[in-house]
């Protein structure tokens, strides 16, 4: 057999992507999507996250709420399995884990900066920033799009090999990131709570 099962799957995926790209409506480009995303001033959502970590026997499940306020405020609060809080305001990160709060600036954690900026720039529709950190490829149509982001920076790529954001219109529905060490995180976003704080 010329094709192993893995190669076959990859082949099918490529075919699927080609088909998907063919369906990409004319005029649906990165700037168009970004412009739509940039119009969102305020958004809140519930999320469920499944994390596959190589050193664990089972995937980690968590859920909580996300909120975003243009241009640069993001909060992720996890309720289950334990309360955690992650707030990004401007350049300052406040992280509460195990009841302890840490503050640091993005410049102190350049690798994390790339990761966080990726998500935030997508939300804000900030194309220049996004392109600064990532190589971008967009597929689909406005009603259902997928943005694949590969970091330029080697250090960032070591942590986060590829990130895939799926969305519908101006809403993001799923963020899937794969780490170089084989870990994978899938976050499903359900944008139902409008304008909740």
């Amino acid at each position, binding site marked *: 057999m010329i094709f192993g099962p893995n190669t076959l799957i990859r082949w099918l995926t490529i075919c699927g992507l080609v088909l998907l790209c063919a369906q990409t409506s004319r005029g649906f480009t990165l700037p168009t999507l970004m412009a739509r995303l940039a119009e969102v001033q305020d958004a809140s959502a519930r999320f469920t*996250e499944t*994390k596959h*970590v*190589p*050193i*664990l*026997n*089972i995937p*980690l499940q*968590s859920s909580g709420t996300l909120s975003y306020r243009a241009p640069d405020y993001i909060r*992720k609060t*996890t309720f289950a*399995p*334990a309360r*955690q809080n*992650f707030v990004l305001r401007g350049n300052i990160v406040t*992280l509460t*884990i*195990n009841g302890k709060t840490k503050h640091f*600036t*993005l*410049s*102190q954690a*350049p*690798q*994390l*900066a790339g*990761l*966080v900026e990726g998500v935030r720039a997508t939300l804000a529709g900030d194309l220049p920033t996004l392109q600064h950190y990532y190589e971008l490829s967009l597929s689909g149509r406005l009603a259902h799009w997928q943005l694949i982001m590969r970091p*330029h*920076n080697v*250090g960032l790529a070591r*942590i*986060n090999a590829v990130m895939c954001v799926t969305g519908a219109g101006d809403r993001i529905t799923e963020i899937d990131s794969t*780490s170089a*060490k084989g*870990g994978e*995180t899938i976050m499903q976003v359900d944008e139902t709570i409008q304008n909740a704080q």
Partner: protein
Amino acid sequence: MRNRLWPVWLWLAMMLVCATLAARANYRTDMGDFLPRARSLGEAALEAQVNGGGAAKLLLVAIDGAPAQTLETLNKKLSGRLRKVPEFAAVLNGDDTSLAQTQAFVWKNRYLLSPATTAQTFSVAGLHQALENGLALLGSELGDMAARTLPADPTGAALGLAQSLGGTTSGPRTDNGVWMSPGNHATLLLLRTKAPGFDLDAQQRAQAVLTRNFAIVRADTPDAAAARLRMTGPGVFAVQTRNLTKRDVTRLSLLASAGAVLFLLFAYRSLLALGLGLLPVVSGALTGIAAVSLVFGFVHAITLGFGVTLIGEALDYSVYLLTQTQQEGGARATMERIWPTLLLGALTSIAGFAAMLGSSFTGFAQLGVFSITGLATAACVARFVLPLLVPDGFFASGAEGIGWPLRWIQRRRRTVRLVLAGTACLAVLALGLHRGGFWQTDLLSLSPLPPATQALDKKLRAELGITPPRDFLAWRADSEEQALRISETLQPILAKLVAQGAISGFSLPSEILPSRSVQLARRSALPDDATLRARFATASSGLPFRADAFAPFFHDVTAARAGPLLTAGDLPPPLALRLQSMLTHTDNGWTVLAPLDTVKAPTKVQAALPRGVALVNLNKQSALLLHLFEQEAKILAICGSLAILLILAVFLRSLQKIIRVALPLAASVMVAGAALTLGDGKLSIFMVAGFMLIVAVGSNYCLFFSRWDEDGRARERAFASIMLANLCTVAAYGVLSLSFIPVLHDIGETVALGTFLCLLYGAAFATSAQSQSP
């Protein structure tokens, strides 16, 4: 003949000895050596800071003038080249390799460095807690990073250290592996030289290497033609200051001596006489250096500079002799005649300078020794050697008419006296009404650097996040180990103060290098492999970790148990420099300076500290030092004046004569002081030396003016000699006042103005009534 010339031989022999001593003397330039011997902890702190430990080796670099991407390329290429040259101990530019060495060191020695290495941490309960925390961390935003470190470091030893040893709290933004200024206008580098900050030649070489490498890098980078490199830092400042001073000193002192030489040549009409005239002052300087070197063991560069100024009076000695030498009798007879006046002049100056001997400023004390021995020697050379060397029949034919302005003052004495007295009254009034202190308290204004350079330094420091700390904890210890142990006892106290909000942060040397005893305790807290594995198995039961995930952890703990303890020599350069900047080894032990971030409640901090540890604010400390300086300058002035009056009283034995000499002198000093502090003017510390010279030189003028036993012709020559001496002084120091270097400008201005006033007041008030008629 041989018998008669013995003073010359003795002098030559002495000069030979002094020149040898001067050539072998130990010259120092550290500002710290000029300051008072540190007694309090605060003074020790200031001294350590002034002498500049690690901080003095910093070079702050910004590259701008090109698009951001070009700047990134330039930065990377330049850093790569600089890391290969021997001049720099550290090249930091925000890339991973800058940090890699430190990170590797912290990672490898995490169990010795971490305060969390305790028996509790390695118990079953401790390990279980650590694994639970690890699980929570895996689920957080830091999960990807935690997944990489957890297998080798489940207790999080390195994670805790990354925060205390990770470096600055507010560093610049890193972009594609290099530091960028806000707005991407410039890319930044932070360099540390291998050579100490005070080794200015080495600093200059390092700066040249930087500039040269930048030029090479710019040449082979496209679009970089307009890029420019700018640097600041203590070393850059010091080199710039030295070069500015050198340029001004060579240019201006050439000009200054040219003026004086022209006057002297005009008067003497003899090159030999011009050369002979230098003998007293040169002899004085050589003896001065030799004496200071013998008494103190070293000569400070500042002593040398100011000292030569102070004994400038000795130049006048030869002017008096050579100008007053008459055709009949020759130089020896003239010296016999003027010696009493010259001796009294020298004695008054020596008495004035003697007050400096008691100063707590090492520099002042050195100046005292230098000027006293220098002047004594110069006077002796003028008295015993110079007359023997002046050729028979020498006559300063050009000096004939030089004294006419003084004769003019004599003729209109009444009017001139009225004007001068009025001016003096106004001066006293102005001094009395002067608001604010008389002294310059802003140390920056004494810096010769242009404001633009100082502004650039401030900006780069803010962007690189290395604003020098102002508040320190200071303590002394007999050994490095003791210094570190004290540091460890302070750790919990400071952590509590941070929690209470009294301070916002701190750095301690024991965070970088724990004491041996603490390291031993931590090492023995690590369990052996079998125990650790057994405890770990119990601790992880019920948690979803894979059984084989933690092999690196067991390996590393076993390695740490068998590994050696850390010493200062093991630290990577960035950490070694941070430790060095906190620990200073002095002759009598160790002084420690631990920086504190923003002290909000000083009294609370002070109250929490144990005995022997002091809270030091460097701003306050340097203000205190300036205040001490001011106090001493006042006391020196009062003691010096009293000593001068005493000497005059002993020799002149007449109240009228004393007043005649002292009053014009006092008036000149008052008017000069008032003129210099007019408006918002302040006196700088450099002017102190200027005032001393005014009194030293001016007292000679007044003494010569007040001679009452001379005939008309001798008087004429005396006037000419005073006039010539003052012309030379005003010409030389007047040119110095054109300099932009504060020290040169201040001294030049003070001396030129003051001695000219002494000439005027002396001519008007010191001359004896007997010979009023022309």
